[in-house]
């Protein structure tokens, strides 16, 4: 296993008497696509939100490239190279698709004053055009994002997370609410992006075919604990996972 880009050690988070995440530890090496699965209420979202600075964990440590980022907020994490998508659609509805992509990268070049007096660089415009072609949304590139179909907005949403050229991308249920043909397309795109641009992805998803087809390793959570970590084949044949989550 290559060096871990993301390392979570003994992370805990409770809501009152309920322990949502109880001492979770795992590592994600550079370039790996890492899946997190588990039934509703297993602590996946709490784990995700802790890793993204949305909530403060009660205990434990999160390291990004060896740096302790446990208590950093979303802005600082993004500046350190973490991209994300949300469970629900989070595009900017009144901006065009192109502007949605440009705004997702613009804060990472120049300084505030140069962004006032200068336009965005050719590099981010080229990158936006590249994603527009790669995600096959060229025909709607200048339409308002809010006017697109759900599936098209989902593609824009995912593309936005990659505009910053992040080293770690956390994808929260990227297939939620999309039709089966688009699920296949999203899987193909994520594999392509992983191959083309490198970076590590952490994916929460309920669609087992998608997770097993996409991820290098999968972690199964039940009641805030890790039940198993392994390759998709290992997870599929794990008795405890079959009994607790996947079923026979």
């Amino acid at each position, binding site marked *: 296993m290559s060096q871990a880009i993301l390392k979570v050690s003994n992370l805990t988070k409770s809501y009152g008497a309920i322990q949502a995440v109880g001492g979770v530890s795992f590592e994600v090496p550079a370039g790996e696509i890492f899946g997190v699965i588990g039934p509703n209420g297993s602590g996946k979202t709490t784990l995700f939100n802790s890793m993204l600075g949305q909530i403060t964990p009660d205990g434990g440590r999160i390291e990004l490239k060896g740096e302790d980022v446990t208590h950093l907020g979303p*802005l600082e994490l*993004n500046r350190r190279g973490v991209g994300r998508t949300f469970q629900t659609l989070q595009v900017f509805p009144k901006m065009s698709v192109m502007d949605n992509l*440009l705004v997702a990268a613009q804060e990472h070049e120049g300084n505030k004053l140069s962004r*006032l007096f*200068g336009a965005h660089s050719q590099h981010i415009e080229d990158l936006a055009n590249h994603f527009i072609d790669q995600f096959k949304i060229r025909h709607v590139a200048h339409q308002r994002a809010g006017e697109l179909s759900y599936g098209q907005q989902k593609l824009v949403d995912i593309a936005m997370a990659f505009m910053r050229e992040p080293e770690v991308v956390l994808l929260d249920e990227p297939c939620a609410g999309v039709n089966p043909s688009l699920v296949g397309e999203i899987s193909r795109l994520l594999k392509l992006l992983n191959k083309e641009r490198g970076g590590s992805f952490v994916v929460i998803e309920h669609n087992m075919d998608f997770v097993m087809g996409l991820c290098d390793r999968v972690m199964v959570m039940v009641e805030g604990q890790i039940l198993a970590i392994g390759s998709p084949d290992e997870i599929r044949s794990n008795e405890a996972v079959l009994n607790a989550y996947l079923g026979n």
Partner: protein
Amino acid sequence: MKRIQLILTLLSLLALAIIPGFLKSHGIYLFTYWLIYVIACMGLNLTVGYAGQKSLGHAAFLGLGAYCMALMLKAGLGFWLGLPCAALLCFIVGWLLGFPALRVQTIYLAFATLGFNTAIWLFMRNEEWLTGGTFGINNIERPSLMGLSLQNNLRYYYLVLFVAALLALALWGLLRSPWGRAFTALRDNPIRAESLGIDIQSYTLLSFAIGAAYAGVAGALMASLVQFIDPAPFNVEASIMMYLMVVVGGPGYFLGPILGAAVGVILPEWLRFAQAWYLLIFGAAVITLMIWLPDGLLSLPSVLAKKRQSREASKKRQEAASLLQAHTGENP
């Protein structure tokens, strides 16, 4: 900018340059007053319409700009120094007012800014040693430009028109820069914006500060237009009226303040014939507008376009259903 938009803009500017030449003194004064509110509302539109911050304290900045100009003129510091100082003062105070917006949003932010307006208004009314209290400050001069006196209403109108055009151009550039996109992202979805590396705190403060600076310039121009200021035009009611102008014109539409300020400044003049019924007619018109066009007057073309698209889609569905029925003999 598309060619047609450029032509329309130039024609509008030409009309604004020519029409007042044919008006009497009161008409010119009214046009100047309207342009001053256009400037103030352009700033409020940035704060409210583009950055999505609910501000009900904009009249306070208009007042700060006006008193800054009046006091500087009285101190002999001159109009041309007073104008940037009014903008700078309001930029700083606006920046400070933005801090509550980092903690509260929506109606709670509106109340915080409303409280700010009340505090500034009380200061203007009670601190007679500085502001003249309810007696105000009179005999405020109008400036000269390279030896040319702008005392005349028409000349002063052209100065205000020039400043308004310049500030509109600056805002146009700002909204098309990455800052403009960041403001819109802040309005539409601050959580997503932050996850993309947009510093929502600094953009929130900037939206208040820049919006306030526009009001400061408007206030400074107003002081020299009216040549007398007292606290009355800068109370909470005036702030609500300015908010209404932005909403009526279309928040987040570049030309919204032009239309909104016309509704707030010129329409009441046209409705003078109605005397006591004026407020009732004005109120009814605003309620009707909010029901049919909640995104303001400038949203009318997009509302009509959506209705047309919906009708066309419905017609196509009906045609497809009829065809299917003709082929299969079944009702789909």
